[in-house]
């Protein structure tokens, strides 16, 4: 299957109101071209699931700047005062999730699990509205799976079929999100022939990837 496409064509498939998972950690490992294209096409009322909202004019912070996000499910907004301002003003709803819990919720969504039991957040405000389950006398929060309509992924390399590998700390949530969305769009730094990434080095199997963005591809 030929999966290569332009960012413009790929983003055209995303409707207003979509639930998006976007990789990245304070902007590192975020698919920049796809984010820019979301802004250019003015996709609105988005639900954003990401580690954070980066900084103004950086990574997914650009979506916040443009007022395209109506709800953000993130572990922190400490690096983005615009998100804080929009939240206080009621323009954006922010659901804060402990970072490790967010990772497990996304992983559960992609793995067909209903949820996981984590000790994180027990007895704190993060436990509000959640079930607490004791196992061997230890209390855990029941944290449920998260899924999305689209995942926008940054990778170091892809092969033509869509096998992905990542680089250093730009890996972060990308491989988890690649499992948890209906449609997965990956933006690799390079696209190499099939067979050029050895099987043991593949982190995201090609079957999970629907579209690959080639830099400057014209189709």
């Amino acid at each position, binding site marked *: 299957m030929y999966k290569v496409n332009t960012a413009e064509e790929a983003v055209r498939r995303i409707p207003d109101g979509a639930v998006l998972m976007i990789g990245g950690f304070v902007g590192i490992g975020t698919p920049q071209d796809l984010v820019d294209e979301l802004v250019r096409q003015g996709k609105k009322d988005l639900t954003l699931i990401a580690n954070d909202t980066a900084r103004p004019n950086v990574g997914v912070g650009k979506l916040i700047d443009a007022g395209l996000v109506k709800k953000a499910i*993130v572990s922190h907004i400490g690096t983005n005062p615009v998100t804080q301002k929009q939240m206080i003003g009621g323009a954006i709803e922010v659901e804060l999730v402990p970072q*490790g819990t967010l990772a497990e919720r996304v992983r559960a969504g992609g793995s067909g699990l209903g949820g996981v039991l984590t000790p994180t957040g027990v007895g*704190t*405000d993060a436990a509000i509205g959640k079930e607490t389950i004791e196992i061997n006398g230890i209390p855990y929060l029941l944290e449920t799976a998260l899924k999305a309509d689209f995942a926008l992924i940054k990778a170091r390399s892809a092969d033509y079929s869509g096998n992905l590998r990542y680089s250093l*700390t730009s890996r972060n949530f990308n491989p988890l999100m690649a499992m948890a969305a209906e449609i997965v769009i990956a933006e690799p730094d390079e696209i190499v022939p099939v067979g050029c990434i050895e099987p043991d080095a593949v982190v995201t199997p090609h079957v999970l990837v629907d579209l690959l963005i080639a830099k400057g591809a014209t189709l």
Partner: protein
Amino acid sequence: MNEKEIIARRVAQELKSGTLVNLGIGLPTMVASYLPAGLDVSFQSENGIIGMSALPDPGLAGSNLTDAGGTPAGALPGACAFDSAMSFALVRGGHLDVTVLGGLQVDEEGHLANWMVPGKIVPGMGGAMDLVSGAKRVIVAMTHTAKGEPKILRKCTLPLTSVRRVDLVVTEMAVIQPTEEGLVLLETAPGVTVDQVVAASEAKLLMPKVPGVMGIAA
């Protein structure tokens, strides 16, 4: 020596060879600069790497390697990278020996609050709740007071980060150990009296032994 350096130097002495350590953003990150020579500590950064180091030169900043605050970083030989689920599996699964975090408040039960001030600033918990719940040892590195107001309280007024008791609190004035009985004043900074520490704290400080003097050798 400013107060942050005093704190960072004292915390550095708590670290032991052969351990895995996570340093929070900000003040805790400074701890790496004051490690005793020859100490073999591995640093984990929750954005997905063990073996992070300072950038040897600003010109060598890569776009795919930063610390958890987004600042370009380096890596040592033997470093390993992983995704966010693995990163927090290490934290939560009992594989992280020490975490050093900043704090807004610590109370007599050893509870830490460090992720929000309702109605004022809501940065979010990031990885802090997982780190405090999961690390084998939690060290809070923070200034003793904020704008003259004490941060060592009888009871935290801000939302807690975890109900787990932290293991050590290091400020520019004192080293305090939360215990089942309460907060034990272990050490005072050079030139700081016990009375000054007590005056700057709202919480009751226990002194089963005469407090020693904080070692902050340059």
